[in-house]
C-alpha cells in the first residue's frame, strides 16, 4: 500500500510539473496548446537517448530543455497570426508530427518499441531505484516550479501576458509586442514541461512514442481545467486528483478482475465525465483564478 501511495504521489508531482507549465501558457497567456505533450515527450526522449549514450542525467535534462524550447519557439512563431482555435489545432498537428517521427526513426528513438532501461536516478545498494528519494526530488522540482510560476504570474511579466490574453488590441496600443510575449510564455512553459518529461523517463525507466499521444495532452488539460485554469495551486491540486482517479482504476481492475479494455474505458470515461461536469458546473475549476489587486 505504501509503495502504491508513493507511486501515485510521485506521478502526481511529475504531472503537477506539467500542469504548472501548461497553466503558464494556457492559463495566464491564454495560449490553447493542444500539442503540449510534445514538450514533455522531447524532454523524456532526450534524457533516454543521452543516458543510453552514457551521459549523466543532468546532461539529458539540459538537452531536453533546449530541444523543447526550440519546439516551443516554432509553435509560438507558427501562431503569430492565428486565432486561438486554429492555433490549438496547429499545435496538435506539430505534436503528432513529432510523435510520427519518434514512431518511425528507429535508429534514434527505438521506433514503436521506444527506449527502455533508462537508468534510475537514485540507486540503492541492490540497484533498485530508491523511490522515496525520487519522490523527494520530484516534490522539490514542483516546489521550485510553483515558486517561479507564482512570481512570474504576479509580477510585470504576468500582468503583461494576462493583458495580452484578454485584450490584445489594448495591449498593443500600450506598446506591448505580442509575439515576443507569446514566445516567452510558450518557451518557458516548454522548458518546465521538458524537465517533467525527463523525470518521467527516469522514473518509468522507459520512453515510448505513446507518451506523445494526443490523449496525454488531454489528460494534462483535464488536470488543469479541473484544478483551476489560471491558478497555480489549483493545477497542482488538479494533478493530484486526476492522477488519483487514474491510478485507482487499474487498482480496481486488479481487484475486481475486469478486462483491460473495460478498465481503459472506465478510466477514460471517468476523466471525460469529470471534465465535462467541471466545465458545466464550475468552469473556473476547483480553485479558480484569483482576481487580486497587485500588492
Amino acid at each position, binding site marked *: 500500500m505504501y509503495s502504491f501511495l508513493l507511486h501515485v504521489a510521485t506521478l502526481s508531482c511529475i504531472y503537477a510539473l506539467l500542469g504548472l507549465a501548461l497553466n503558464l501558457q494556457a492559463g495566464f497567456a491564454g495560449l*490553447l496548446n493542444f500539442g503540449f505533450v510534445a514538450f514533455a515527450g522531447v524532454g523524456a526522449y532526450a534524457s533516454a537517448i543521452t543516458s543510453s549514450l552514457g551521459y549523466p542525467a543532468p546532461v539529458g535534462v539540459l538537452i531536453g530543455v533546449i530541444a523543447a524550447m526550440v519546439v516551443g519557439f516554432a509553435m509560438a512563431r*507558427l501562431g503569430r*497570426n*492565428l*486565432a*486561438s*482555435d*486554429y*492555433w*490549438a*489545432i*496547429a499545435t*496538435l*498537428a*506539430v505534436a*503528432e*508530427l513529432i510523435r*510520427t*517521427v519518434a*514512431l*518511425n526513426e528507429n535508429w534514434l528513438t527505438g521506433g514503436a518499441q521506444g527506449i527502455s532501461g533508462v537508468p534510475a536516478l537514485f540507486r540503492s545498494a541492490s540497484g533498485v531505484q530508491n523511490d522515496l528519494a525520487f519522490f523527494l526530488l520530484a516534490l522539490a522540482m514542483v516546489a521550485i516550479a510553483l515558486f517561479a510560476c507564482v512570481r512570474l504570474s504576479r509580477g510585470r511579466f504576468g500582468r503583461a501576458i494576462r493583458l495580452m490574453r484578454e485584450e490584445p488590441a489594448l495591449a498593443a496600443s500600450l506598446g506591448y509586442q505580442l509575439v515576443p510575449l507569446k514566445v516567452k510564455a510558450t518557451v518557458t512553459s516548454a522548458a518546465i514541461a521538458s524537465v517533467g518529461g525527463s523525470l518521467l523517463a527516469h522514473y518509468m525507466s522507459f520512453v515510448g512514442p505513446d507518451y506523445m499521444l*494526443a*490523449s496525454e495532452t*488531454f489528460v494534462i*488539460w*483535464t488536470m488543469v*481545467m479541473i484544478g483551476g485554469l489560471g491558478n497555480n495551486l489549483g493545477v497542482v491540486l488538479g494533478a493530484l486528483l486526476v492522477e488519483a482517479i487514474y491510478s485507482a482504476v487499474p487498482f480496481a481492475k486488479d481487484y475486481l478482475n475486469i*478486462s483491460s*479494455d*473495460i478498465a*481503459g*474505458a*472506465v*478510466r*477514460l*470515461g*471517468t*476523466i*471525460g*465525465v469529470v*471534465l*465535462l461536469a467541471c*466545465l*458545466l458546473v464550475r*468552469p473556473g475549476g476547483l480553485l479558480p483564478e484569483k482576481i487580486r489587486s497587485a500588492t
Partner: protein
Amino acid sequence: MLQFIVDVLIRTSDIMLVAVGLSVVYSLVKFPNIAHVQYAMLGAFGTLALNRTGLPFSLALIGACVATGLVAVLLNVLVFKRLLRSGSSIAMIGSLAISMILVAVVLGVAGSRPFRYSSGLSSPINLGSTAISVDQITSIACGFGCVALLAVLLFKTGVGRSMRAMSSNPALAAATGVDGARVVNGITFLSGALAALGGTMLGLTETVHVGLGTNLLLPVFAAAILGGLGNPLGAAAGALLISTAETLVTNLDFGWLFGTSDVYVPVTYISAASFVILLVALLFKPYGIFDREVRRV
C-alpha cells in the same frame, strides 16, 4: 496511374464526408468540435450493430446516420450550447471531454479489436493493372454522390438558402424570419449524419475500430480548414487536395534527389503529409485557400 487515381479517390471519400460535415456546422457553433470525428466512429459502430441484428447493410446505414444525427443534435442542445456561454475555448475543451466519453463508451461496449461488416466477400474488379473492390466503389460513389446532393440542397433549395443564411450571419438570418432553432438543429443533424456516413464508408473500406475517429482528427480538420471552415464544398476540395498530397508523397520516387532509385517516403509517414499541409495552410491561408472575405478593422 489509374491505381494512383483510385487511391486518391478512396482516401478522399474517406475524409470528405466527415470534413464536409464539420465545415457545415462550424459557422454556427464557431468552435472546432473535436467530438465531430467521433460521430464518424459512432456511425460506423451503429451500422455494425444494426447490421448484426439482421438488417441489411443499407438500412443499417440509414438507421445509424439518423441515430448519430440525433445524438449530434442532443449533444449540441444539452451540452455545447451551455458551454458556449462560457466561451469558445471552454466549448472546445468540452468537445474534448465528449470525445473521451464517446470513445470510452464504445471501448467499454465493443472492445478495442477491429470489426468488419458482414457484407460478404466480394471479389475485386480489375481495371487493367489496378484492382478495386466493390466496397471501395460504394464508398467513392457514396461520398461524391452525397457531396453532389448537398451542393444541390444548399444552392438550389429554399432550405439550403436558409442554412447558408444562418451560416454566414445567424443574427441577421433570425431577424429576417429564418427559424433559428430549427435550422440550427437541422444543420447539426445533417453534419452528424454526414459524419456517420463517412465513418461507415471508412469502416467499409478499412475496418471498424474504436480509434477510427481519433485517426481522422487531423486529416479532417486539415481538409476543412484548407477549404475554409464554413465552406462545405471547399472542405470537399480540401479533402481531395490532402488525399492527393498524401498519395503523391508516398508514391513519388525521390531517388533523383539522392542519385539512386527507389527512394520512397515510408508509408508510416503518410499521415505526416496532411499535418504538414495543415501547418503550411494555417501559416499562409488560415481562412482557407478559397478565402475572399474582406474584413474591415
